[in-house]
């Protein structure tokens, strides 16, 4: 039966899906075919998922085709998706079928709000779409077209158009595709560059092939700094499975503070590992300890923020990311009285903290929203001086608070490490709950305390580690902690049952 070529285009509002569709229609008409395109207009096009549909056929003289206004499942020859999850959506809608569909899609991700608002890791798994594409499509041409578009200084639609040409799914010559772009007359050179990159990439390695990771030097190789190399040597005595993480952790804490702090870090890791009997679990615990103790010790305080904002590597990095000459850099900061107090010696900080009016005064003087120009000498110097308080850090109230919290946490870890190494690893990973600044940080601390409290009640059960992981995952699901509340209620219910029994 004679049927038209059917093409569905799935894009996100603002991606230029309409331009691509106009090109396809112009191409077909240029080649003497008849073509129809339809789209769903309206507010859907404001950053939402949109679908366009094209049908085209070579019609004999006097014959007028009756085109369908919409894509029908099982009936689509070419599906073009301008983003990887949109490719997934096309497959879900039944538009991609193994008997006929060529799937042309960009593998880059544009995250949905639902992925971004999760406090933990809410990013959708791209590999699921890869697997589905393999199962559903007759042929797949998928690669990171956004990267190619950027390389061409153009938008993704030109690369998609090139890929469409490259697959040969439409029986038109390359010259016709390029003529259409030229005839449209807007941004022709950039579009042609993007088109060329898309065309060439179709023949590049197939979907999902990853480059081999380069061979790395041993993680704990000496750097030629006597004191630091001594620390590396100490780290090397810890389980091999943790070496890579220890190298990172050591670098992190020494950059944060100094060599002595690195030594304290290794003390803490060693103390945990010592409790674990030799087993495969020992590597897991050591790695978790190396990771999370480093993060806990390098807590985010004013000194660290100032140091990072003034470090030499920052300015070149900004220049690179901004892709242009950066004239001015303005920091958006809002120090609070709490942070100022945290910088004071422990006793002074506590004393002032007890006087609300003094705290309010401090907030008025030094707190509040601040715009600091770190490209200017004065702005830079302000943060440079704060960063210079690093030597003072160990005497501060904040340090005392953090150290106390870390010690309590690690004591619990060490207590269970001998009997239940898996639980110890999970308790270490609870550090992941503490992040953010001010209110977000406070909420994180609260979640951390609640999960730790529950884990003490769970200790001794064979599934304690599993439950702690579940609780942590729940805590990372939403901001307010309602998923955690529900999970804790479940834990309470079975713990109470046991007590009752």
């Amino acid at each position, binding site marked *: 039966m004679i049927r038209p070529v059917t093409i569905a285009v799935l894009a996100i509002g603002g991606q230029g899906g309409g331009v691509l569709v106009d090109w396809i229609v112009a191409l077909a008409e240029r080649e003497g075919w008849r073509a129809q395109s339809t789209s769903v*207009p309206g507010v859907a096009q404001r950053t939402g998922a949109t679908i366009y549909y094209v049908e085209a056929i070579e019609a004999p003289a006097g014959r007028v085709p009756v085109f369908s206004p919409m894509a029908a*499942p099982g009936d689509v020859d070419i599906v073009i998706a301008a983003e990887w999850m949109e490719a997934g959506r096309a497959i879900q809608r039944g538009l991609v079928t193994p008997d006929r569909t060529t799937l042309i899609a960009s593998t880059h991700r544009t995250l949905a709000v639902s992925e971004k608002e999760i*406090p933990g890791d809410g990013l959708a798994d791209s590999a699921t779409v890869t697997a*589905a594409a393999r199962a559903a499509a007759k042929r797949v041409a998928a690669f990171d077209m956004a990267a190619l578009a950027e390389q061409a200084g153009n938008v993704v639609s030109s690369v998609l158009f090139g890929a469409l040409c490259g697959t040969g799914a439409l029986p038109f010559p390359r010259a016709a595709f390029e003529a259409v772009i030229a005839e449209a007359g807007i941004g022709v050179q950039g579009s042609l560059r993007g088109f060329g990159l898309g065309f060439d990439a179709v023949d590049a390695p197939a979907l999902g092939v990853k480059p081999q990771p380069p061979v790395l030097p041993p993680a704990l190789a000496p*750097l030629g700094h006597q004191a630091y190399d001594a620390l590396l040597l100490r780290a090397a005595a810890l389980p091999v499975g943790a070496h890579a993480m220890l190298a990172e952790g050591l670098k992190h804490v020494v950059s944060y503070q100094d060599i002595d702090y690195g030594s304290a870090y290794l003390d803490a890791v060693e103390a945990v590992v010592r409790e674990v009997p030799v087993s495969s679990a020992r590597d897991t615990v050591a790695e978790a300890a190396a*990771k999370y103790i480093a993060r806990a010790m390098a807590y985010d305080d004013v000194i660290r923020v100032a140091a990072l904002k003034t470090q030499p590597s920052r300015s070149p990095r900004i220049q690179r990311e901004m892709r242009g000459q950066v004239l001015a850099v303005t920091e958006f900061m809002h120090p609070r009285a709490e942070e100022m107090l945290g910088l004071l010696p422990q006793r002074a900080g506590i004393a002032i903290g007890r006087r609300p009016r003094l705290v309010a005064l401090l907030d008025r003087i030094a707190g509040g929203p601040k715009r600091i120009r770190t490209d200017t000498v004065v702005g830079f110097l302000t943060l440079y001086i704060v960063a210079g308080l690093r030597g003072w850090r160990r005497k501060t109230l904040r340090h005392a608070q953090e150290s106390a919290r870390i010690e309590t946490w690690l004591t619990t870890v060490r207590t269970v490490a001998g009997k239940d190494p898996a639980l110890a690893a999970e308790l270490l990973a609870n550090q992941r709950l503490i992040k953010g600044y001010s209110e*977000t940080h406070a909420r994180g601390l609260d979640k951390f305390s609640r999960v730790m409290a529950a884990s003490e009640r769970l200790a001794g059960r064979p599934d304690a580690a599993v439950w702690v992981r579940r609780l942590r995952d729940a805590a990372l699901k939403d901001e307010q902690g309602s998923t955690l509340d529900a999970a804790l209620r479940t834990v309470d219910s079975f713990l109470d049952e046991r007590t009752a029994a």
Partner: protein
Amino acid sequence: MAERSFAREIQQLRLGAGAEFRGEGILAITKALLENGVGYVAGYQGAPISHLMDVLADAADILSELGVHFESSANEATAAATLATSAMYPIRGAVTFKSTAGTNVASDALSNLSSSGVVGGALIILGEDYGEGSSIMQERSHAFAMKSQLWLLDPRPNLESIVRMVEHGFALSEASSTPVMLEVRIRACHVHGSFIAKDNRPPPFSLTQARNAPVRDTGRIVLPPASFAHEKDKIARRWPAAVAYIQEHGLNEVFAGDLTEAGIILQGGMYNSVMRALMRMGLADIWGNTRVPLYVLNVTYPLVDAEIVRFCADKRAVLVVEEGQPDFIEQALSKILRQADSPTRLLGKRILPMAGEYTVAVLEDGIRGFFAAAAVEADLTPRANAAAVLDEEPVRALADVVPARPPGFCTGCPERPIFSAMKLVEKELGRHHIAADIGCHLFSILPPFNVGATTMGYGLGPASASALNGGEGKRVVSFIGDGGLWHNGLTSSIGNAVYNKSGNVTIIVDNHYSSATGGQDLLSSRAVARRRSTGHGIVQAVRGVGATWVRQIDRTYDVARMRATIREALTTPAAGPKVIVASSECMLNRQRREKPLMQAAAKAGKRVVRPRFGVDADICTGDHACMRLSGCPSLSLKHTGEKLRDDPIAVVDNSCVGCGHCGEVATAAILCPSFYRADIVENPGRMDRFLAKIRTTVIGALQRRRAARHWMPA
């Protein structure tokens, strides 16, 4: 200035007889209006016919060459009332708006117009916002036709048929003294196709003639006793005249087929989908040949009884394809066949779904069901669907992965900070009842803001909070856009609140355009419009109807000020409505205006400074608090690959327009110090280079000093 320019496409409106027109449905409709001697056109934008208004605005020169008057109406009621000219003068008029939202607003005028009747052809072009992509309640225009005795055209969705129905629509209107509605579905508005053009015709009776020779006829005015006569005239004269015209000119079409014992009666708008469903069953081909006889209703109201009885005469069973509910057409057909004592079985929504869009897949299921139920013998091609692949494990796994992607605020949208501020105020003062309106700002009801409890129609946000006015407890907050305000909200919402001494808070979201519908100008638009009078301040208008507590914020991105103002409005002891006018230009429009200018300036070697935001990766802790107060498309997440991290961190991508929202929120909500603004300069001046040199030297020296004191592993 509308979002999309049709400056290039409108040249096709000048095509003469015999030339082939190629383009979109809305452009074809415009061309058809000109070919049929239309004298005036008016309308109100709204998907899916926004672009029809944009085409008309862009075609202003061509329209005035032909002596055609064009107005962007204040609302749909204004547009419909404009047709009054055709009630008294032999001038063809056309108006357009979306349906059913717009038809609701227009109903008062439409009822009066249809009672009076018309002498000049009056055409109402309805963009039917139903099914996928629709943003309104799902209702039918058909009911409006029935209640007011307006005729409803539903042409086959190809340009030729649509253009033909514009021509006949005017003639039918004149032949039956009745306004005619032309319904165009979402996809047909933007369908790309072709037709053979005719010459444009200037209106034979001009508006100047009308102005200079006014006509008055009390028999045509809706007042008793004329109004009683109108009703009878509709039945006695206008209806039969319409039916005669429809029959005589063959507006409805019959497509013959060899399976004569069955048939399908369908709305014209459903034709292409039905044909594709039949093609998938092996009962039709791509060239329009069908084995099942079809009776296509290009006119769905009124129905022509004789044609229906004739079509059904030799058939055992007939299927009605009627999208939407209630099943008005099926009910009418039942009556017609019953009264004709027809033995033909009528099947419709017993087999097809009562509600929801009739997609090709739905229709195919329905027609297959019809063949089974009516026991029609035919060799059907097996169903070519995707069920098998959808059942495979890797495909099923997508259900847990692919995120919903509803529409939302654009990058740099000035409305985003208003809702960030609202969310922050609610953190302080607790949750409030928040009434939403229609417009882009309605995206606030979605994550991450989750702000807004009701939406009751355009311009009716504050009106919808009326019952919660006064008394004890918290105040209610309502949102309304500048579009909604000028549409009717100034009286329905603000005036109403003043008059009833409401204590509630109203936030007017003023982005200088009717943005949700495509960025059309408004009374309060700040740009100078060549053909319209703009620049009329919202604050003046609101004060003019009596509001006294009015605050103007001219930079919505100032989240701290926005928050303070909302907080004040909710806590002030002042009586009466509290009105906050939050103004910043729609970023889409602003970028469209400024970007080319900046690019040109940079190209010409001029110093151009452009802001962009960034996140310091090592300061961001990956808590995503900023995401929950933003949702900006350019503010995203990425995994850094650092071994010490588990969670992705914030990143600002290249699409950032430097609006400043993320930085403002980070400080206003005290989130984190990760955000920074970089001012990127092109063609830096001598002073720039000099300052940069000094700064780099001093800063470099300080950094070297620190490196000497604090050794860091590389």
